[in-house]
């Protein structure tokens, strides 16, 4: 009881949950065994709130669960039909905004965008494909930036830094033309191990380590057996 007293009490879809002060909705949800789908979020990085897939509803307001701190008495709506459909439509927007050809992608089976599409049972996007013309850019001796697949989650921008803290990746341009770019010298200085880390951080097949691919056979990839989010569901820490 005393444990619960010091915590913030709130609900997700009616289920009573407890949060530590300062926790975001998504952190608290995961700790309470509730999965809130997310894509740009990455453990240990400052949240960006860019994909908006973790959007939940509190009262009449919509907010990103990855950036919004929990407040006492909050009644969070998570798995409700209209919200789930809007989340699904964001996933579909990402599929048509870029060129995502899963069967030929090294990340297939480990890709979080693909895994979310499976979880949401996306058959074909409701939106017309845009088929943008994008480039594959060599990024130093160890990496490729496959712009066709980039969803601008900003994980690399937030998480891959030079030793002195300088940004290696960053956004350039704006509007629908926004894309991820990099400092050529700084990206070239990444070691093979750092490049591998950058690739693992990328939720899709946009950042790829050169000279390796398809190393894990189908059937042994991350999302081959259980859908994304099952690591949180029903568990309570």
């Amino acid at each position, binding site marked *: 009881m005393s444990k619960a007293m010091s915590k913030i009490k709130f609900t997700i879809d009616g289920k009573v949950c407890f949060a530590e002060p300062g926790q975001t909705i998504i952190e608290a949800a995961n700790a309470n065994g509730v999965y809130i789908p997310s894509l740009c979020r990455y453990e240990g990085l400052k949240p960006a*709130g860019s994909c908006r897939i973790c959007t939940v509803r509190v009262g009449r307001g919509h907010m990103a669960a990855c950036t919004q701190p929990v407040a006492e008495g909050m009644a969070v709506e998570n798995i409700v039909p209209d919200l789930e459909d809007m989340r699904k439509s964001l996933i579909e927007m990402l599929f048509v905004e870029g060129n995502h050809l899963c069967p030929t992608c090294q990340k297939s089976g480990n890709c979080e965008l693909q895994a979310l599409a499976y979880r949401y049972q996306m058959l074909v996007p409701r939106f017309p494909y845009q088929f943008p013309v994008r480039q594959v850019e060599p990024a130093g001796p160890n990496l490729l930036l496959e712009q066709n697949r980039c969803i601008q989650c900003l994980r690399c921008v937030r998480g891959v830094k030079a030793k002195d803290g300088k940004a290696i990746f*960053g956004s350039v341009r704006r509007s629908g033309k926004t894309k991820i770019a990099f*400092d050529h010298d700084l990206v070239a200085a990444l070691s093979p191990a750092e490049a591998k880390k950058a690739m693992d951080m990328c939720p899709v097949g946009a950042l790829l380590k050169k000279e390796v691919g398809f190393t894990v056979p189908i059937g042994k990839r991350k999302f081959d057996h259980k859908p994304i989010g099952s690591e949180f569901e029903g568990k309570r820490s």
Partner: protein
Amino acid sequence: MAQKGIIESIVAGYKKDPSRLIDMVRDIQKELGQVSSESAAKIASLLNISKVDVEGIVTFYHFFSTAPAGTYAVYLNNNIVAGMKGRQAVAEAFENYTGAKFGGTTADGLIGLYETSCIGMNDQEPSAIINGVVFTKLTKSKVKELVAAMKAGQDVHKLVKSRGDGANQSKLVRAMVCNNIRKKGPVLFAPFKSGAAIKKAVTWTSEDVIAEIKRANLLGRGGAGFPTGLKWEFCGREKAFPHYVVCNADEGEPGTFKDRVILTELPHLLFEGMAVAGFAVGAQEGILYLRAEYAYLKAHLEKALDDLRKKKLLGKNIAGKKGCHFDITIKLGAGAYICGEESALLESAEGKRGEPRDRPPFPVTFGYRGFPTTVNNVETLCAAARILDRGAGWFKLMGTPKSAGTKVLSVSGDCAKPGVYEVAFGLKIQDLLKMAGGQDAQAVQVGGPSGTCVSRGQFERRLCFEDLPTGGSVIVIGPRRDLFDVVHNFMDFFIEESCGWCVPCRAGNILLKKKLVKITSGKGTAKDLQEIEAWGKTIKAMSRCGLGQTSPNPILTTLQNFREMYEAKVHQDKDFISEFDLAAAVKPASSLTGQKLTEAHHE
């Protein structure tokens, strides 16, 4: 080349402070006509930051370019009212007389032609900014003269042949811009004795000043209507110091220009309002974030600041109050609508890309450089000074129960008297139309593209927070206009001005616009109408900031108020029409082979 020395001296001039990156890039753009990849690398190495950080800035703002922008860079406003006033002919004249195409320069690099979003001159369109100088009411023949003068190498300042009214004529402004103040109200455009507000404020406690503003029920004039007194209270009680006062002079909502007129005619009142805010929240520093389109007012505004310093109303021990210090600096934007959003403005003021922040924390707790900051609109701060001067009771006598005081409106479009009107809140649209000479309007766009498109049947509605809120933009749309042109223009605007950070705004608006094109080109069905509405609602609900949360409004509010216009466009008898256009899809190939598609191919 000599440019090495130029970049070094510019960067050194800002003490190699990365938070001045936008200022550095602006100066380099001005000196070298572009900020090339080499220049970006040079800046990055001088500041010891990543090159991608510099490129992020250069490519974000309208008035910076990675390629040579031209010795003369012409930025022609592309908003809908410019279109109503003959922009197309002017644009064609620019292309014909220069030989350049929009988006590029003449072969010799002398003249560059670019489109830009609303530059705050809607009452005197078509207008353009050439090397920072504003040219209004352009015609084909004026363009001919301008191009000839540019080809002759003349200084653009010398091409301003006539001067506008009021302070536009002053030595420090020398602009052909007109104020067009059509109606002066009792709050803003009324006699004010400089010093009256701040001298009174310093004899009170800051709590009393805030209480007076709260009692007056002053709501933010930028459009959102947040209670100003509450904002000041939140900011003032924060324990971290310093606190800041930031004036949002980045009015970018298409159709609004009232802040431009206030900045031109009432800078002393505005700065005094900032001083009052500073006293109330415990700030010693104020920042005026001025949109780049109004850079021509900077010297004039600096002069006003100097005047106030001389009168001891700014600086140390202001208004004779010991220990009460407050001064103001001006920071320039560089062309980005999104920077009118307060957290994006703060990012930009810190020298970064104008990308909104996640909130909470709000600027009152985590604002400029991470310190408590109150961000207020130009008009709000002026009204605050007047409330101190005349009292909350006086202020509340005007307007409606929930919207006290007056509102300065920017009226443009199909009306006889476009310009600035200061009216009491609660004015009916039909009464405003009568004043402005636009009674035959088929529609009125209230609050700019992010606001509401109101139909004739609703002209009884009132301009106030209870009914139709507006940051000031009122666009009159005459009976012969195709309302779809307006909707298309507004959607193009939002697509262009999205910062690109979040998915629904970046990708969704483009898809929404494609659906609109499908419908207006006669390929829509009833299902398309359902979808465009649903998609619009998704973008509103899921977007990260106010831009995406309102960007579908041009479609959604016309769907609501002009439903029959959409119904008439769609095929009610068909379930599905493909938007695939075979002729367009095979055009590259068929143009190579010389093959023409016949109707048979389409079937």
